[in-house]
């Protein structure tokens, strides 16, 4: 299974150097990739449907428990088939839809990357691995939404989508790590067995919240749904593939995957029911107010995602069957509707429902595809959508008693709106009279109308033989959710019962809504009046606030003044030191251990202090340099007093050379550089900060004196200086023998500084020559 993921990633990488050969219609050959993968997964259908789960493992980071562990069970298979199957059609479609686009190769690169990532999500048997692929889908989605990167709206939508899904991913990771800590494993198979440990853990609500936030943001559940309509800025094949058929269902997949691990509790059920219910009602109603075809489809997709969340929350076997079936049905008809929309947009140059009409006369095959999809979406008999809708009603009707009626009513209302939305997108542009401006619309290449037609027809094929999907794909999916074998048959005809009645009501009411709901700009204006209450508005507000804060913070921390940086660093260091000193216990001085002060030492220190004072206060550069050199010589004397002859000589020579250096450079600078000392308050502030730093360092030094010094290494050097290194000056032996490596590097560093000085002076920049 690893190869199914790698092959896409490798293709994606290969497209970087070889991309130029795929900007032409040859790019359709890339569709072979998803087709082969589709074949691979179809080949595994019999095995998986007989109840087997295939595993595969390749070591990656064993120490962290992250390996390439993959599993292929019913749930993975369902999604893998969707990803590769619809992917194949999208690859074909895009080669014609984006024909001649200068970045077509890049588009395919992103698409391959996305397909691999998505397969990784559904095949992972390790939740951390799943997370990695999960993020990769967000990133590839970001690139695809922002594919038209010269449009500001595109870029903004891409960022919104990335920040929403990225936020969710971040929380998801936290949730997953918590799960791993609780159960002691990251493997999905083992987590299912440890489900009890997690659901009874006191942190369970937190884990649930984090994981669901990940799923909700990805699957555009209310109140995080707003990124999805924005994501429709992506080229239409992307909308069809990512933002309808596959990626947004990753959240649904995640919830399904975690059903046997986190599910089965009232908290889980009620959260999903409420969020799913609100989402589907909100989005279904909203979809009726759109005039942009893609807007209609986006909102109806959100509504469907709500339905799926709702079904998983219901948690009964019927609900799972309904969810599994509905995922397939929806993927087929919604992708088809998107592709049809794409063709219309491409050929007529508009997606405005109020302007479109009568296109059946010029785009007949597209009309057929659209109608088939719309009918399946409406749930007419002999379409797969019909089976799906029936199963949804069956699931709500068999749910627990207190909620039964409410859930059914919610489902019916949402479905009515969905029927109307489906008709608006699939039939409306083709119905009625053909406006004259579209009279000369040309038929597009077969490559763009065959994929939606295939999707529409397969919807009806499965509608006629529902058990084909039911037995081979839905049943293993459901058993992956319930963790036990499931037996059922999907039938076209259930006899006359409540479900059929509800289906009838839905279709009729939906048609009525469609006929009487005339999408119009005025309605959008009506909806927009409530904009300041929508989650999107709050998101934008907080976004703006955050950006203002960032600007302020950057201006404060990163203002370009070296002093300002330094003072912040120093104050921070002071706070740390104070904390350590306060925490570290009392400070005392052991007077008995101190060496008495002799007169010449005292005088030397006084000279030092005087020189320091001179250096700091003087306004003359020459005096300051003299002060510094006095400090150096006085320190040199101190080394003499305290048994460090080598240091004394070195300090003396270096100090001399430094003075020479200053003399060479500074005396050639024209006249004295008077730099304002700044105003008084700044001087006082700096003096306080500096003084505090000095005091803290002194205290630290006293503190260190309290601790007895460890002399093991020094004694070792002393003991073996002669026997090992044949020398008697231990300092020199440390430098050239015991720690010779350090010295070697030191002389290398010195050489580098010499090269630096040399090149800085010899280097001739154009501007300085001009000067």
């Amino acid at each position, binding site marked *: 299974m690893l190869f199914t993921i790698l092959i896409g990633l490798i293709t994606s990488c290969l497209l970087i150097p070889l991309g130029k050969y795929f900007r032409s219609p040859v790019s359709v050959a890339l569709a072979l990739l998803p087709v082969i993968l589709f074949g691979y997964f179809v080949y595994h259908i019999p095995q998986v449907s007989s109840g087997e789960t295939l595993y595969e493992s390749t070591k990656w980071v064993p120490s962290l428990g992250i390996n390439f562990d993959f599993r292929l069970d019913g749930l993975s298979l369902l999604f893998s088939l969707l990803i590769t199957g619809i992917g194949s059609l999208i690859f074909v479609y895009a080669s014609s839809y984006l024909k001649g686009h200068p970045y077509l190769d890049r588009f395919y690169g992103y698409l391959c990357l996305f397909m691999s990532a998505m397969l990784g999500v559904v095949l992972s048997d390790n939740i951390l691995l799943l997370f990695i692929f999960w993020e990769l889908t967000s990133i590839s989605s970001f690139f695809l939404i922002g594919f038209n990167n010269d449009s500001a709206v595109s870029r903004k939508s891409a960022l919104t989508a990335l920040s929403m899904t990225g936020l969710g991913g971040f929380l998801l990771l936290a949730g997953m790590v918590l799960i791993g800590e609780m159960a002691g494993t990251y493997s999905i198979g083992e987590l299912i067995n440890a489900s009890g440990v997690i659901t009874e853990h006191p942190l369970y609500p937190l884990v649930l919240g984090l994981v669901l936030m990940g799923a909700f943001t990805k699957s555009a559940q209310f109140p995080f749904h707003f990124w999805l309509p924005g994501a429709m800025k992506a080229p239409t094949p992307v909308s069809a593939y990512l933002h309808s058929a596959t990626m947004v269902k990753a959240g649904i997949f995640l919830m399904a995957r975690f059903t046997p691990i986190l599910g089965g509790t009232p908290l889980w059920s009620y959260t999903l029911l409420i969020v799913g219910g609100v989402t589907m009602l909100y989005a279904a109603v909203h979809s009726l107010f759109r005039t942009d075809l893609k807007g209609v489809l986006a909102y109806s997709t959100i509504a469907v995602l709500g339905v799926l969340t709702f079904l998983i929350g219901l948690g009964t076997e019927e609900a799972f069957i309904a969810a599994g079936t509905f995922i397939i049905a929806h993927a087929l008809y919604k992708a088809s509707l998107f592709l049809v929309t794409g063709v219309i947009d491409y050929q007529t140059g508009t997606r405005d429902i109020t302007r479109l009409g009568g296109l059946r006369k010029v785009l007949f095959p597209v009309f057929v595809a659209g109608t088939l999809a719309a009918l399946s979406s409406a749930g007419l008999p002999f379409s797969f959508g019909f089976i799906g809708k029936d199963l949804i009603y069956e699931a709500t009707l068999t749910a627990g008693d207190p909620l039964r009626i409410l859930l059914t009513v919610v489902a019916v209302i949402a479905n009515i709106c969905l029927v109307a939305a489906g008709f608006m997108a699939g039939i409306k542009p083709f119905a009625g009279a053909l406006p004259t401006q579209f009279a000369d619309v040309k038929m597009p290449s077969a490559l763009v109308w065959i994929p939606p037609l295939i999707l529409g027809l397969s919807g009806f094929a499965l509608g006629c033989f529902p058990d084909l999907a039911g037995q081979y794909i839905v049943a293993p999916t459901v058993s992956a959710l319930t963790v036990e074998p499931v037996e059922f048959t999907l039938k076209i005809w259930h006899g006359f019962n409540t479900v059929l009645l509800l289906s009838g009501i839905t279709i009729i009411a939906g048609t009525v809504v469609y006929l009487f709901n005339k999408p119009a700009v005025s309605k959008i204006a009506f909806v927009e009046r409530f904009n300041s209450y929508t989650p999107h508005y709050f998101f934008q507000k907080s976004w703006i606030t955050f950006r203002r804060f960032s600007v302020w913070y950057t201006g404060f921390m990163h203002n370009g003044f070296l002093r300002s940086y330094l003072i912040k660093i120093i104050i921070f260091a002071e706070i740390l030191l104070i904390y350590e000193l306060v925490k570290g216990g009392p400070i005392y001085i052991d007077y008995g251990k101190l060496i008495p002060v002799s007169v010449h030492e005292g005088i030397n220190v006084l000279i030092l202090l005087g020189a320091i004072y001179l250096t700091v206060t003087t306004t003359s550069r020459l005096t300051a340099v003299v002060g510094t050199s006095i400090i150096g010589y006085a320190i040199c004397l101190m080394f003499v007093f305290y048994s460090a*002859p*080598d240091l004394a*000589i*070195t300090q003396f*020579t*270096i100090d*001399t*050379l430094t003075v*020479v*250096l200053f003399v*060479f*450079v500074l005396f*050639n600078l024209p006249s004295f550089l008077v730099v304002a000392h700044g105003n008084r308050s700044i001087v006082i502030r700096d003096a306080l900060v500096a003084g505090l730093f000095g005091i803290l360092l002194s205290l630290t030094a006293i503190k260190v004196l309290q601790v007895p010094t460890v002399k093991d290494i020094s004694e070792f050097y002393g003991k073996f200086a002669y026997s*090992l*290194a*044949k*020398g*008697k*000056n231990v*300092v*020199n*032996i440390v*430098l*050239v*023998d015991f720690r*010779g*490596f350090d*010295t*070697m590097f030191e*002389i*290398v560093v*010195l*050489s580098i*500084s*010499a*090269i630096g*000085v*040399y090149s800085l*002076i*010899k280097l001739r920049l154009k501007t300085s020559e001009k000067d």
Partner: protein
Amino acid sequence: MKSPILQSASRYLLPILLLFSVFLLLRGHYYPGGGFVGGLVAAIAFVLHSFAFGTAESMKMLKYKPSAIIPVGLIVAAIAMFLPVLFGLPVMTGLWIEEPIPVVGMIGSALLFDIGVYLVVIGVVLTILFTISLETH
């Protein structure tokens, strides 16, 4: 700063200081001194000369550019470092000639290493100072 007193003084001081620096270098293993100190003293000797006669004159006297001494020193130190490898010993192992030599004492790879340090220090200090000095005058 071309005073005759300084010039004639430095004419004699230069060899004396250089001799002193070599002395510091060689005895570094037994008494205070060593490559760093020796190199710095030698550098000061040349700087004094350049003060008296001008940097260009000092450069002429040196024949080679001071920057050329740096790689020589690095190579010498590196040889001292890797010499033990030829004898199958780990890098930086001290190698010693059996018999002590008068004045200098024991001779070994550590001394060679110190000579490398000495050369690098002279090279670095003179490169820095002479480059700056030539630039400003």
